[in-house]
């Protein structure tokens, strides 16, 4: 597999085209959607940079929290956590659960909406 250009470079090139060329040629609703598209590509670039590490850390925390088999898939771990919360086996006072959710939400927000104000309210 060739990496020149890399996935990140390709996405950045498309984003630059939208920002510098397409948006200036568009008006009204299409211009608005072009800006949304540009923001989406920024999210893609951030996920390319941060996603792998964030997922590995989330998975490691869940394995420890749920005492699961180390090979369990992330989606399955999250489903297990949801079921145990729903069953009442895990509550907000269960050691480590809120800290885990907080670390996960911060990592996700760093990819999705790094400028969102919510993190300011965390303890």
């Amino acid at each position: 597999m060739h990496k020149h250009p890399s996935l990140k470079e390709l996405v950045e090139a498309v984003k630059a085209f939208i920002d510098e060329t397409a948006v200036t040629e568009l008006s009204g609703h299409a211009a608005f959607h072009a800006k949304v598209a540009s923001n989406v590509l920024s999210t893609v670039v951030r996920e390319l940079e941060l996603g792998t590490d964030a997922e590995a850390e989330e998975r490691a925390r869940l394995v420890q929290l749920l005492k699961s088999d180390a090979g369990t898939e992330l989606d399955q771990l999250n489903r297990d956590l949801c079921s145990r919360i729903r069953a009442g086996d895990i509550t907000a006072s269960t050691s480590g659960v809120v800290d885990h959710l907080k670390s996960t939400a911060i990592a996700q927000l760093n990819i999705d909406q790094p400028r969102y104000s919510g993190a300011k309210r965390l303890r």
Partner: protein
Amino acid sequence: MPQDIESALNALASKLGESGTKIVDLKRLSGGASQETWAFQLIDTNQQASKRILRRAPHGLSDARSGNAMTLESEAKLIRAAKVAGVPAPSVLHICVPEDGLGEGFVMDFIEGETIAPKILRSEALSAARTNLAAECGRALAGIHNIDKSTLPTLETSSASDQLDRYEELYRGYDIPRPTFDLAFQMLRDEIPEPLPQVLAHGDFRLGNLMVDEAGLAGVLDWELAHLGDPREDIGWICVNSWRFGRTENRVGGFGELEALLEAYAEAGGQRFNPADIDWWEMLGSLKWGIMCMTMYDIYRTGADPSVERAAIGRRVSETEIDLIALMETRIANA
């Protein structure tokens, strides 16, 4: 299609103004899935212009509307009732009948002002208006909540536990695990507040649906989510961090103090609440908005609307997760 609307409005113009009145400058303002909004001007025989708004079902067809929104006729009647109660709202001038050829809809006057939240929060010209806005919101909410229910069209009823049930069912239906939401449902269910007598709730009282001018609150808009419910629901909703648009330090809509809203609310005849009475409802609000974002993403996922906007909103769910966790931390610390 704009030509059809223009000719139908021209036929209606003599009912909206004096004989000989014409309409010009018809423009589509926005097109949601559930409503079309059009602006136009009435020109009378002395060439005096006055701006009007037409709200109607998409293509005039009510069956295209989303399942949980009310009919436009009910919405028009609610706006009239609110206006009579002294709540800042547009005047409804005409409720469409089949002979109008416009489908389901109504015509109202146009209120000048600003609805774009970041402008309301940051505009120099609106800085004096911002000072009293929380109190004005309190008075407007007291006015809405005190409207005699027997004068209203039939409305959906939705209590605290109805809302938990409805949003939990939606969330489960998407089959996308977000453990923060499961924990939020668990915490909220453990502490459902004692129900209060149900009132007319606006259902979407927040920046974006409030028209503000230099004098203050000029109009409460977008009544399509109104229902009978708990008075604290509307107060909690405008406190949700998503509607503070970055001004997190101001609990009411990014512009004001909750104490100021509650004081004005009580003075205007509403029940007296403490800020802590609103905490549960703010948390419910963040959870609801998170699931609403999932709903909008689901419209993309199922192929019903392939727009990039629908896809992108799925990546705003994490904003509500951060907000829920901050509220959980506060709840745990105060427990």
